[in-house]
């Protein structure tokens, strides 16, 4: 029993250390000292991120139960960055009287879910994978219900936990079928054993439901708008980017690694899912009045685009997928940053409330607009590049029609993104949102997002780095 191999698990260990420090600090800190838990968490997470931002060589631990390859470093760094930005944006909210008492738990639980995502992504075995995904989901329910005296938040928490457990129940049943058919749950072994007999297909589909649910593809998306609307805005952002991004990445690795022999089966499945996800989400997004609900549908359709990277199942697909996650993360978080600033100050979350925002808050609306443009794929913002690459990856595999459908949907999505731009810039309002002085952490987060939105595309080195490490 040689446990020293586990020391190689830098990422998880250091994150665990952060979690433990925060937990202990939260428990033992004095009333006064508790104030510092916010900067402490942010600093610790930043240190953790920086320390683990350098790719290493491939390795396996525990007989392949934990696998490492350099791309994981990137995706984890991206998720870390997202979490840091989330922490920065949530800072103000966490100082509210209603939640200040639980802020220690907020950091702790969020980091736990992050650790769960780590495990999920690094897993080389379905058991570890399942534990990872559950670690990411179950505490997430408590985060969603974090504003527990708020009916909406409580309701969203309940809906989330019920549907997530339902989905993971199906997923678990699928895993049991895989086990029953193949006799092992190690990814590397499974890759050789899986054939295209019906039981494997059924097992794969059942298993994938759990991920589809997290990615919130149509028709597994129905929880998304309700939960996004009800959850605290920071958590909504987290759900929409960090949780979703890692799930897509895992879907890619598992589908291409474990179910490589079933490629001919899962590609059509994804094809259909992409089409209906993007289309239906777009159709629903058009009618939304609540901006968080709106962002939910936006994120569903973005998930469809993300899956274009998965369906191409190539090195290009992987790199463009990771890059897309990166860009999507920063764009979406910028929007959620602005939403949370405004929501926190005025409690307004309807799109109509954004009318005339530019008159009073030009900078916030500018950031929002750039982020929306980035999501819609307008150059020179990063979203254009990420979209182009992911489309290129899909066309490389011959998915012309799919890309075409996706592009037509891009136009629809542009429509509803422009609705918000229109609200902010074009519509006049008698009572626009008052002038808001953004607090420093949120401002830092927005600036960070903005920098990435503008430069992540123009500077090719980011993509080149990712591309150099992608593999099938």
């Amino acid at each position, binding site marked *: 029993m040689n446990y020293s191999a586990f020391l190689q698990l830098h990422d998880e260990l250091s994150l665990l250390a952060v979690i433990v420090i925060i937990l202990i600090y939260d428990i033992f800190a004095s009333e006064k000292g508790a104030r510092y838990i916010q900067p402490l968490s942010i600093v610790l997470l930043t240190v953790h991120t920086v320390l683990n931002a350098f790719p290493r060589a491939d390795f396996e631990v525990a007989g392949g139960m934990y696998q490492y390859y350099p791309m994981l470093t990137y995706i984890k760094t991206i998720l870390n960055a997202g979490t840091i930005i989330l922490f920065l944006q949530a800072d103000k909210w966490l100082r509210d009287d209603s939640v200040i008492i639980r802020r220690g738990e907020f950091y702790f639980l969020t980091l736990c879910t992050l650790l769960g995502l780590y495990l999920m992504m690094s897993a080389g075995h379905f058991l570890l994978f399942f534990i990872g995904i559950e670690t990411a989901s179950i505490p997430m329910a408590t985060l969603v219900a974090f504003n527990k005296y708020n009916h909406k938040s409580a309701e969203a928490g*309940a*809906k989330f936990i*019920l*549907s997530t457990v*339902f*989905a993971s129940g*199906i997923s678990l049943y699928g895993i049991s079928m895989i086990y029953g058919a193949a006799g092992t749950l190690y990814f590397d072994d499974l890759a050789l054993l899986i054939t295209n007999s*019906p039981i494997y*297909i*059924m097992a794969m*589909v*059942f298993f994938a*439901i759990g991920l*589809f*649910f997290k990615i919130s593809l149509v*028709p*597994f998306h*129905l*929880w998304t*708008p*309700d939960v996004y609307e009800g959850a605290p805005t920071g958590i909504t952002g987290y759900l929409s980017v960090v949780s979703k991004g890692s799930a897509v990445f895992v879907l890619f690795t598992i589908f291409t690694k474990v179910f490589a022999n079933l490629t001919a*089966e*899962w590609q*059509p*499945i994804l094809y*259909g899912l992409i089409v209906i996800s993007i289309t*239906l989400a*777009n*159709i*629903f997004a*058009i*009618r939304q009045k609540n901006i968080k609900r709106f962002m939910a549908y936006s994120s569903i359709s973005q998930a469809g685009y993300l899956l274009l990277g998965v369906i191409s199942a190539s090195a290009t697909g992987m790199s463009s997928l990771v890059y897309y996650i990166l860009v999507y993360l920063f764009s979406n978080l910028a929007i959620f940053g602005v939403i949370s600033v405004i929501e926190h100050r005025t409690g307004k979350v309807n799109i109509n409330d954004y009318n005339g925002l530019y008159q009073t808050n030009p900078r916030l609306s500018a950031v929002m607009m750039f982020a929306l443009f980035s999501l819609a794929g307008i150059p020179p913002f990063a979203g254009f590049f990420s979209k182009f690459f992911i489309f290129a990856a899909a066309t490389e595999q011959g998915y012309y029609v799919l890309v075409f459908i996706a592009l037509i949907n891009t136009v*629809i999505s542009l*429509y509803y993104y422009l609705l918000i731009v229109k609200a902010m810039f074009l519509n006049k309002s008698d009572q626009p949102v008052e002038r808001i002085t953004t607090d420093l952490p949120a401002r830092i987060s927005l600036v960070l997002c903005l920098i990435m939105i503008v430069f992540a595309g123009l500077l090719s080195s980011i993509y080149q780095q990712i591309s150099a490490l992608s593999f099938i």
Partner: protein
Amino acid sequence: MEYTLFILILPLLSFVVLGLMDTKWKPRVAGTIGTLVLGTVAALSYYTAWEYFSSANINGVYQKITAFEVVWLKFNDILHINLGILLDPISVMMLVVISTVSLMVHIYSLGYMKGEKGFERYYAFLSLFTFSMLGLVVATNIFQMYIFWELVGVSSYLLIGFYYTKPEAVAASKKAFIVTRFADLGFLIGILILSFYTKTFDFGILTSGDANVFASISGATFMGASVLSWAMALIFIGGAGKSAMFPLHIWLPDAMEGPTPVSALIHAATMVVAGVYMVARLFPVYYVYTPEVLHGIAYVGAFTSLFAATIAVVQTDIKRVLAFSTISQIGFMMVALGVSGLGGQEGTGYMASMFHLFTHAMFKALLFLGAGSIIHAVHSNEMNQMGGLRKYMPVTHWTFLIACLAIAGIPPFSGFFSKDEILAATMHFSPVLGMTMSFIAGLTAFYMFRLYYNIFWGKEHKVQHGRTPHESPFAMLFPLILLATVTVFAGLIPFGEFVSSDGAPYHIHLDPVIATVSVLIAVTGIVLATILYRKENAMPAKMASAFSGLHKAASNRFYIDEVYMFVTKKIIFKRISTPIAWFDRHVIDATMNGMASVTQWTSARTRFLQSGKVQHYAFAILLGALIITALAIFI
């Protein structure tokens, strides 16, 4: 003879300078500049004519001299538009005509337009017109001709619409432009066809008689006629538009809304003969390759001539009478060209046409200027506002009379000679046609003297608008006198020595029979007019009621305008444009909007999918899972 370039450049410069300066200069300065420039141009033209006719005759044939030529726009290695100056007998003759009439009009306008608002603009436009017209006649190639053709059209548009606050003037200018534009489309297509097969625009090559040029086109046919016929017919449509041949003549009477000197210059003497000139220019092609088109031209000309003369008899607006007379006379020229042969006596028609063009320009300008002088005095265009003016305006009266005699074809005035040649040629070609033309000549004499008597004789309207009519200032009289002099003597020019169908000079001789008959017919016309109109009597009204149907139809110009109005307003506006615009808004646009609406509709109708109940969500998840499984396995 590169100096000929200045004939073009000077008016252009004058236009640009006057146009840019606009109201910055005093009217007098602008007028002076314009007139001086035109004087120089006229002098240059005369010198050119002198030099050309004295030096270009080599081996008994007048040579075509290209005085100047540059490539203006290269389409490809074969086709390119050149701009240049081609001197040959007819172009030189035209130079003289245009610069003379233009100069006269310039001088005349100094008096006529005095005190008008936009005097500078007027002179600028005159310069532009002169430039364009000169450019047209010296064109070395058909495309250059087309370019200046268009420019002439625009100048005409601008000048007709000179009184732009008058709705009639605006409408008339618009009409003139659009009708000629429509005709020009034919011209353009004709050029396209012709140039495609012959690989050239150049007149020199086209008219050289080289059969190779037309080798590739001769076999081609389209809808039963040879392509070359199509091309030449289409080109003629362009000419018909400018020269107001039926049924494209409708713009010309309305064009009289412009200032009268403009009518004299453009709508009588120069621009309207552009069509004739063009046919003459391409005459060898017409004659050799498409005689059927040439004959068609003759018939169109004859019909137009008759038609216009008939209308002229009943018009009461003096300028309209002159306008229809112009149409009629151009018809004569067209007929002459149409019946002409090539070379020597055979080519009498050609020569006669050019000759008539020349003399007509002079006497018609004189008529118009005289009419202008009258209008200037009376402040009205209507005949019944006039009468007995000969006492008050002696100079105008005499010059007008000379012109009337000339157009009626009374010797020794110039019109007699030219018209006589035309009748001779026509008679030679077809006696029926010749007789028709003779009849028209009589009609011409009749309506001109109807006009003459109505203006200068009959009942006096002494006081008009509180003023007694008085003779015009010298600036206006001078051109009248000068043109009258020319009108008197121009018939004596041995025109055949200079202009002929093949460039070789020949002697014209009068056919005494035809001359006598035609003079008799003319005199009959005059006598008839004298009886009817010299003194006020009831006969004209009786005549009118006797032929009431015809009279009414002729007064209304045979309802051609109404037909046009019907076509434009009812068909183009109501039946084409409005439906298209409607279609665009309600079908195409609605389709595009419809896509958006369908999306939104779907969006609004799909709410039930998102019920808010967690069981429904789970239901969807499971159903999705099962369906995907089933599809993946069983398909």
